[in-house]
């Protein structure tokens, strides 16, 4: 058989841990549709896709890109043509080969979807994609209409999962049945039930794991069962009492005592923005930089961590997570300084009135917070911040919507949305600047349009930067500027995925989007 050229020879883990074992992973939701394109970026279904499918490239927790199904890759100077060299001998669980043709089929469906059937494109896949060609069985050439530096990191992003061409060709309603979908991952779906569980069994002939995790052969654990238990306290209690092995999304407050009971607690951070607000600068009074700066100084971030979270959470040092390559420490701008905040507000003309609420021209200083439904602790933090801001004269209203209504009503720059709460991952810090503004399909987070010259300038320079080294000072400048202007108000670094795990289970790895992979894990009796 063909042996991967750059792989570690598949062996059992050296520490003598044994094969076998069944893991039960308790999860609060199993997401919605299983059509791969539509579901791959779901934060719940990503757990399953991570075991059932492979990606062309691997991105680790520090954002480092390494080979996986693609052993090597090249690009032309203008970054409009890429050549991918695939591992040979890789097969999907339905027996078909993961060859160049399969990769082209995947690239095509990622880009275009089949909209009339309800198969969406992968939204984050570069819109500049033109087409891809099979050069030979293990070589694919990809063409773009415009330079697309982000293409390579995108291949390691969780949306870019490789699916068997047979599955891709099947109609949407068949794709929606997870049991009928074939990937090339170390596990296959043995059985599943919507809203109930997904049971995975290991694929014995798997032999093409990412070298970066230190293992390429078959997985050790026999089965992994993702079981839906929607109550957080029940998930944790089940792991405590030994009825399950992993509880996902435990309540942060409980973590300390769980650790002291000997359970493993993992709070991996993904690569992306910290949890915080993008401020709508169109909406009074947040069109006044002094008010924004007062907001920046009026939040006691340490108290958030002490009250709602645990020391596993990190203080925000910038508006991007500190593990992102290129993140710099801007803590000075984020220090809690209520006196400064009050002074800024006084200067801006907001005087304290009845009940300690500040007002100007008869209007109270108010802030409406729309708690992010994707982050469990969001409401508690909002409440706490409301208390903190209340002390310096802010009137804070909290609204909580369900996921759908949130999606409908709460948008960047929306009329009733002075502060949009961000929970967002990305792979490459280079893309950040363009998201913030409205150039090139940017999302215009601060509703600045083209009004802020400095920001636009930085954006253009970052986009045009030739090397990572050259980009670094520009990124630093961007971070300082955005925070100093009070455009983005960080709360804490985000831990969107909390794992409480039985001590018997060891050796899992967390990737750049903080998913736990049990491909490398073992379980002792």
């Amino acid at each position: 058989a063909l042996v991967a050229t750059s792989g570690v020879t598949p062996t059992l883990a050296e520490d003598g841990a044994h094969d076998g074992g069944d893991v039960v992973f308790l999860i609060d939701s199993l997401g919605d549709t299983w059509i791969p394109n539509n579901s791959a970026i779901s934060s719940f279904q990503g757990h399953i896709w991570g075991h059932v499918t492979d990606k062309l490239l691997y991105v680790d927790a520090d954002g480092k890109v390494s080979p996986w199904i693609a052993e090597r890759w090249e690009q032309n100077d203008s970054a409009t043509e890429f050549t991918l060299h695939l591992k040979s001998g890789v097969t999907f669980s339905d027996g078909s080969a993961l060859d160049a043709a399969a990769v082209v089929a995947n690239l095509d469906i990622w880009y275009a979807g089949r909209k009339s059937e309800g198969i969406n494109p992968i939204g984050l896949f570069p819109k500049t994609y033109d087409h891809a060609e099979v050069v030979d069985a293990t070589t694919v050439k990809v063409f773009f209409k415009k330079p697309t530096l982000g293409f390579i990191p995108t291949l390691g992003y969780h949306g870019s999962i490789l699916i068997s061409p047979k599955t891709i060709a099947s109609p949407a309603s068949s794709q929606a049945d997870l049991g009928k979908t074939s990937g090339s991952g170390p596990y296959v779906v043995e059985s599943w039930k919507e809203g109930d569980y997904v049971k995975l069994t290991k694929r014995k002939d798997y032999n093409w794991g990412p070298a970066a995790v230190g293992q390429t052969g078959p997985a050790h654990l026999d089965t992994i069962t993702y079981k839906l238990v929607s109550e957080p306290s029940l998930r944790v209690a089940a792991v405590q009492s030994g009825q399950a092995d992993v509880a996902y999304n435990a309540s942060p407050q409980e973590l300390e005592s769980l650790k002291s009971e000997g359970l493993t607690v993992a709070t991996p951070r993904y690569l992306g923005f910290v949890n915080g607000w993008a401020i709508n600068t169109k909406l009074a009074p947040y069109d006044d930089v002094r008010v924004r700066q007062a907001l920046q100084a009026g939040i006691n971030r340490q108290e958030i961590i002490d009250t709602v979270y645990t020391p596993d959470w990190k203080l925000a040092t910038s508006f991007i997570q500190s593990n992102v390559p290129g993140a710099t420490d801007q803590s000075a701008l984020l220090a809690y300084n209520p006196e400064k905040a009050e002074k800024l507000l006084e200067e801006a003309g907001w005087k304290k009135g009845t009940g300690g609420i500040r007002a100007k021209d008869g209007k109270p200083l108010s802030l409406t917070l729309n708690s992010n439904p994707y982050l469990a602790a969001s409401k508690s933090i909002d409440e706490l911040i409301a208390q903190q801001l209340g002390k310096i004269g802010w009137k804070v209203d909290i609204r909580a919507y369900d996921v759908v209504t949130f999606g409908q009503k709460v948008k960047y720059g929306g009329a009733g949305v002075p502060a949009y709460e961000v929970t967002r991952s990305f792979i490459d810090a280079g893309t950040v600047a363009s998201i913030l503004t409205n150039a090139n399909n940017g999302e215009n987070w601060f509703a600045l349009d083209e009004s802020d010259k400095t920001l636009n300038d930085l954006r253009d320079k970052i986009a045009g930067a030739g090397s990572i080294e050259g980009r670094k000072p520009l990124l630093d400048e961007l971070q300082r500027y955005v925070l100093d202007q009070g455009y983005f108000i960080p709360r804490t670094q985000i831990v969107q995925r909390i794992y409480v795990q039985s001590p018997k289970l060891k050796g899992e790895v967390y990737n750049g989007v903080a998913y736990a992979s049990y491909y490398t894990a073992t379980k002792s009796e």
Partner: protein
Amino acid sequence: MSKAYFDYAGKRLLQAIVVILLSYVFTFVVVSILPGDPITNVLNNPQNGFTPDEIKEIIAAQGLDKPIPLQLWKAFSGFVTGDLGLSMRTNRPVATLIGEVLPSTLVLASAGLAVALFLAAIIAYGTQFLPRRFGQGLLRGFPSLFLSVPNFVIALVLIHLFGFQLGVFRVIEPDSFWATLFAAIALGIPISAQIAEVLIANLDHESGQDYAAVARARGLGQMRLFVMHLLKPSSLPVITVVALTIGELLGGSLITETVFGRNGLGSLVQRSVSTQDLPVLQAVVSLAAVVFVVVNLIADLTYPLLDPRVKLVGGQARRPTTTDDSSHSISKAVTP
């Protein structure tokens, strides 16, 4: 009897069909009040990075831009011909989704009903045999208490006590016998209270009737009086009440299933509600209505055959007794 009975049955059948169809339309209208659905929701999430053009194209491809009445008509004609359509959230046939979860809910609901009947019978019949001062007051207090404890509190307490503290069942295997039993208890307790209240009211009423005194004067002991005379007339009207609790069994399963982690109709509704998966909601509501209507139809059609007191007049069943003077609001509310 028989012509009157068939008139009555025919009329009830027709009503049942009308109600089922209307409930379908009703759900559609209510759920359509709020704009939004799983598909546009995904598209509108900025994190997913769709361009406005893409969004428009996909929405048009799904027919979601059509006027509401047109969508209703399409869905409704499908429903009438037995096609429940595709779930917008999961893209799978609604019938498959319901088929997957229905057995679990049916098991839970039947077990819940069994628990409810068992508890109600113990409480209500117990009042007939316990000494008036001590035990009766206690037993008679149970229904009120049962009606006052939130369903989810019972469920939480049961699961923590029996699932974790005592380890009677494994919480992650909610379909096992013991887990089902405790879920059924959580579901059945409030319902048992309603049945028990009606039973007690009926028993009080019947044992206060002259015929009970006359039977006692004929030398019957308490036990024989109860078994031979009171049991049947006081229990028969419970058929009607039980049929009406079907709705609550299905509705209550929403919370019980959520807390116990069971995958049934209730939790399907919860998942669909939070994403406004209209086709599923409509199908589930219609199914609930069908079950409710059919069960009540059966109850209404068999009741006149079982209870000789019922008179069928002008297509309506009348029981010329008397729950009136016991003036018990629940039984009043539920006796047609």
